[in-house]
C-alpha cells in the first residue's frame, strides 16, 4: 500500500463515517429488513471505496454515496422486493387527510387533527405505508422523508431531472396521505367510511 493510497483510504473513511447512520436509515426503509439493510450499507461502502477515484473532491459525498447505495439496492434487493406487496393506489386527491379530517369534524375536536391521527400510528405502521407506495414514488419519498436532502440532491441520487423529483414527491406525498388514512381507518383511529358519525 502506497502512502497516497493510505491517504485516499483515510479521506474515504472520514467522509464515510458521518453518512453511515443516515445511509442505514434509508437502507432499512428500502429493504424493510435489518439484515438486508446492514448488508446493503456494507456492499455500498465497499463499492464506493473501490470507485473512490471517480469521486470529485469538494462535491457532495453523501449524494455520491447514496447513488451507489440506491443502485446497489436496485440491482440486488429489488428482486426480493417483489415478494413485498406493493399496493397500487389510485391517484389521491389534493389535501387528502385535511379534507377527510374536516369531513369528520376532527378540527372541531382538536387543534391539531393531523397530529391526532398520525401520532397514534406507530413508526412501523408509517414505514409500512411508505414501503407500499409504487417504487418510483417510494424511492423519492424515502430519500425525502429519511434524509435532509434538497430536490437537487434527490435528483442526483435517482439520476432524474429535478422536475421529475418534484412531481414524484408531490404524487408520493398524496398517495402516502391516502395510505396513512386507510391505515388509521383499519386500526379504528378514525371511523370507517359509512360508520356512525363522529370522531373516536
Amino acid at each position, binding site marked *: *500500500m502506497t502512502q497516497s*493510497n493510505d491517504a485516499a483510504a483515510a479521506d474515504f473513511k472520514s467522509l464515510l463515517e458521518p453518512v453511515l447512520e443516515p445511509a442505514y436509515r434509508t437502507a432499512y426503509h428500502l429493504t424493510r429488513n435489518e439484515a438486508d439493510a446492514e448488508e446493503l450499507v456494507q456492499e455500498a*461502502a*465497499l463499492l464506493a471505496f473501490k470507485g473512490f477515484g471517480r469521486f470529485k473532491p469538494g462535491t457532495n459525498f453523501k449524494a455520491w454515496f447514496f447513488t451507489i447505495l440506491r443502485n446497489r439496492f436496485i440491482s440486488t434487493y429489488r428482486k426480493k422486493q417483489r415478494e413485498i406487496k406493493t399496493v397500487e393506489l389510485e391517484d389521491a386527491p389534493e389535501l387528502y387527510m385535511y379534507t377527510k379530517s374536516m369531513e369528520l369534524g376532527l378540527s372541531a375536536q382538536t387543534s*391539531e387533527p*393531523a397530529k391526532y391521527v398520525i401520532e397514534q400510528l406507530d413508526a412501523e405502521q408509517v414505514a409500512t405505508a411508505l414501503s407500499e407506495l409504487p417504487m418510483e414514488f417510494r424511492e423519492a419519498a424515502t430519500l425525502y*422523508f429519511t434524509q435532509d436532502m434538497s430536490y437537487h440532491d434527490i435528483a442526483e441520487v435517482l439520476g432524474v431531472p429535478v422536475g421529475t423529483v*418534484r412531481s414524484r414527491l408531490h404524487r408520493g406525498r398524496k398517495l402516502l396521505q391516502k395510505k396513512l388514512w386507510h391505515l388509521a381507518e383499519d386500526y379504528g383511529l378514525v371511523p370507517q367510511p359509512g360508520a356512525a358519525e363522529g370522531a373516536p
Partner: protein
Amino acid sequence: MKKIDRLTCEETFRRLDDYLDRELDQHEMALVRKHLKACDVCESEYVFEDTIFNVVRKKLWQVPLPEGLRDRVFARLEEMQRNES
C-alpha cells in the same frame, strides 16, 4: 418586467410543496408567506400538511445504526485494502 406582488389562493396552493421544502426563491417564499398571513384557509392547509409530514419524518427517523456496524464496515474496508496491496 414587473414582478408579481401577490398570489391568489390557487397560485399559493401550487407552490405549497415547494414552500414547505424551502425550494422556492426568496421572492416567491416571501409571496407565499404574505398570502398565508392574510388567508386563514390557506394557512390552515399549510399548517396541516407541514404537521403531517413532520410527524411522518420523525417516525421514520427512529432507526439507529446497529451496534458494531461502523466497525464491521471499517473492518471490511481494511480487509479490501490489504488484499489490494
